[in-house]
């Protein structure tokens, strides 16, 4: 099939589903669900067919002209976009199907499904965008969909606040991205991504090193916002206020990965600036470690996963910044699968127990949900990087990339973060599956126990993703060839440190939480200061509240006073003093017409005399 019709199928189907659902089907949730899932299926089919056809020449169309600037939109079909496109479409479809069960009883589910469709359209359009400005537009729209989905339960103040925070913090990043994109236009005169990346005529060849550094740094600011990197990461844990399938889809697997994707997309530009790469390495390693420490102490299952997402995104950026496109993209895709799986499994627990608390889920019999527990194990093992599951191979690539110049501070930090990852992942698993003691299952659980706690609509996606997460590790060479890179094969010896830290992490978790006699308190509790620091998210949010928010509101208050007193006030005073003068002159207005006429006549006379003398 034509690439045009396929890409239209991929992107327009969700848009059509969204439009139909929001305009016509508000009152018919069942029909809306069918339409949206139909759209998602078509979209997946289109993306898959595109992937089978392999990389193709991009399509470009004129969007508008302003003077000599021509803005185009179009679609880019190269390895990165094709693979990530399929991953997005697949996970979205999984989440949509899963939501049939998870959101089955929500009164506003049409709105929910419509927003999922909106998200899918924006995300896919972003993934396939050929034009940097087009990317930016859909990047913003993805953020918009995220805003609506986080704030889906808008009657909960915490959800509204989280949505607001997410929108504003990503917006801060977007300002950087926006300026960066505009700078690209100034330097290159166009937004065309393949053109910008071209080795001989592209931006790297055109721009002065300082300008290139500036551009890439600004774009990286956008990535920091969207991919929740330090210091703009605090919105992501809060975003867990949204429905769990949304967290799975947007806030771990796809949307937050948009930042990483953008960096992969523009990888040659970033490779052109050493400074930027250095900054990214620092930020990404800080993030990977910081988020892992916070995941160690979180008690909310979704928060653990959220922090781990932040940490893993840091890993991806580390891989990309270390120069390995393959490592970043590989981890992006495996992470998308296993993190979506983990969230959907946690959703099964949350749905069943109506609680997010790890300890409570464990006490009330988390491990009796065999299906969910199996998914959690596979996903967790993949996250922790246990061979031969997905995460192991992709993380291994990142270590390899970091280690290619010998042992650096970054590879040590990465290993430390990987150790913590294994630790907190298995802490989570052990807390759920090996509680110190279990409550007796409540009788009503038996009453409507169908043998399996979850409906097929929730089970099927979990099953699919479990399989995906399990085998994703073996797609390495396929992905590498999709990117046009030969997959490197690493010797067993080079894998040793990664395997060792994972084993160490799992063992420590077993000591703290797994064994029967464990205290079920993390080792970190022995250092109360650190525990407090981790629990409070390193006080980043507190800093924002105390400094950024306060300052902004203070400026607003001051300007408000200035407006009332100075600008508006002075005009008012002017107005009222004119009224005063008016009151004085009123006395001249005695109402005698003859008096008025007399003045007129005098004036005419004076004027006549004046003219007479002058002439």
């Amino acid at each position, binding site marked *: 099939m034509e690439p045009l019709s396929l890409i239209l199928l991929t992107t327009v189907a969700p848009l059509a589903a969204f439009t139909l659902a929001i305009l016509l089907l508000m009152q018919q949730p069942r029909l809306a669900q069918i339409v949206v899932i139909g759209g998602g299926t078509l979209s997946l089919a289109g993306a898959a067919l595109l992937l089978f056809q392999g990389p193709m020449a991009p399509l470009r169309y004129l969007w508008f002209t302003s003077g000599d600037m021509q803005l185009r939109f179009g679609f880019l079909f190269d390895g990165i976009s094709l693979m990530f496109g399929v991953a997005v479409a697949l996970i979205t479809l999984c989440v949509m199907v899963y939501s049939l069960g998870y959101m089955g009883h929500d009164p506003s589910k049409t709105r929910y499904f419509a927003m999922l469709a909106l998200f899918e359209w924006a995300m896919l359009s972003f993934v396939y965008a050929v034009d940097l400005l087009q990317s930016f537009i859909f990047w913003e729209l993805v953020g918009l969909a995220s805003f609506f989905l986080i704030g889906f339960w808008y009657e909960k103040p915490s959800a509204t606040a989280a949505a607001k925070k997410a929108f504003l913090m990503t917006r801060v990043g977007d300002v950087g991205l926006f300026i960066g994109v505009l700078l690209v236009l100034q330097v290159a005169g166009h937004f065309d991504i393949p053109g910008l990346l071209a080795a001989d005529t592209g931006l790297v060849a055109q721009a002065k090193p300082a300008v290139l550094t500036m551009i890439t740094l600004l774009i990286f600011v956008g990535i920091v916002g969207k991919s929740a990197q330090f210091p703009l990461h605090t919105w992501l844990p809060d975003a867990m206020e949204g429905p769990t399938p949304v967290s799975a889809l947007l806030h771990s697997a796809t949307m937050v990965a948009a930042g990483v994707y953008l960096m992969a997309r523009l990888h040659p530009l970033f490779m052109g600036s050493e400074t930027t790469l250095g900054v990214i390495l620092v930020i990404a390693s800080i993030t990977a470690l910081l988020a892992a420490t916070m995941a160690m102490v979180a008690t909310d299952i979704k928060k653990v996963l959220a922090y781990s997402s932040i940490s893993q995104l840091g890993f991806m950026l580390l891989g990309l910044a270390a120069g390995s496109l393959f490592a970043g993209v590989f981890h992006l895709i495996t992470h998308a699968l296993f993190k979506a799986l983990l969230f959907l499994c946690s959703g099964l627990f949350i749905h069943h127990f109506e609680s997010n608390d790890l300890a409570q889920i464990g006490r009330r019999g988390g491990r009796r949900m065999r299906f969910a527990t199996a998914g959690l194990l596979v996903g967790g093992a993949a996250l922790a990087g246990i061979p031969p599951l997905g995460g192991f191979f992709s993380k291994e690539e990142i270590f390899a990339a970091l280690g290619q110049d010998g042992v650096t501070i970054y590879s040590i930090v990465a290993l430390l973060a990987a150790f913590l990852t294994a630790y907190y992942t298995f802490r989570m698993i052990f807390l759920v599956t090996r509680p110190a003691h279990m409550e007796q299952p409540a009788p009503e659980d038996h009453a409507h126990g169908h043998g399996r706690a979850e409906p097929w609509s929730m089970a099927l996606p979990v099953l699919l993703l479990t399989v995906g997460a399990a085998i994703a590790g073996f797609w390495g060479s396929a992905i590498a060839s999709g990117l046009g890179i030969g997959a490197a094969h690493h010797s067993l010896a080079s894998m040793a440190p990664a395997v060792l830290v994972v084993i160490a992490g799992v063992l420590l978790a077993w000591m703290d939480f797994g064994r029967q006699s464990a205290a079920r308190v993390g080792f970190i509790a022995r250092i109360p200061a650190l525990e407090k620091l981790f629990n409070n998210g390193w006080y980043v949010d507190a800093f924002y509240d105390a400094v950024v928010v306060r300052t902004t509101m203070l400026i607003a208050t001051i300007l408000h006073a200035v407006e009332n007193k100075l600008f508006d006030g002075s005009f008012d005073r002017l107005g009222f003093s004119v009224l005063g003068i008016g009151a004085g002159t*009123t006395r*001249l*207005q*005695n*109402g*005698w*017409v*003859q008096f*008025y*006429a*007399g003045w007129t*006549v005098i004036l005419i006379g004076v004027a006549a005399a004046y003219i007479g003398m002058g002439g």
Partner: protein
Amino acid sequence: MNLESFLLLSLVLFSLGLFAVLAHRNLIAVLIGVELMMNAASLNLMAFNRFSVTDPVTGQVFVLIIIGLAAAEVAIFLSIILNLYRTRRTIDAEQLTELKG
């Protein structure tokens, strides 16, 4: 008599009318002042018509029109005076101060 003396006469007449309009309290007297001013204007036109143009028709027509309009104006003015007198029992200009600020 030449043009200037006629103009001077007309100016005197006009100023007298003006004084009447401004000074009198009785609206009828005010009306009379207005009439004086209009006649001063007519005189002006006739004088120019005689001394300054070659075709004397226009000025005469002009004056005839003034006379006609004066008739119309007087009719309206008098009816207003009557109306005022009926409603307010006065035609004293100093008591009609609707425009007072």
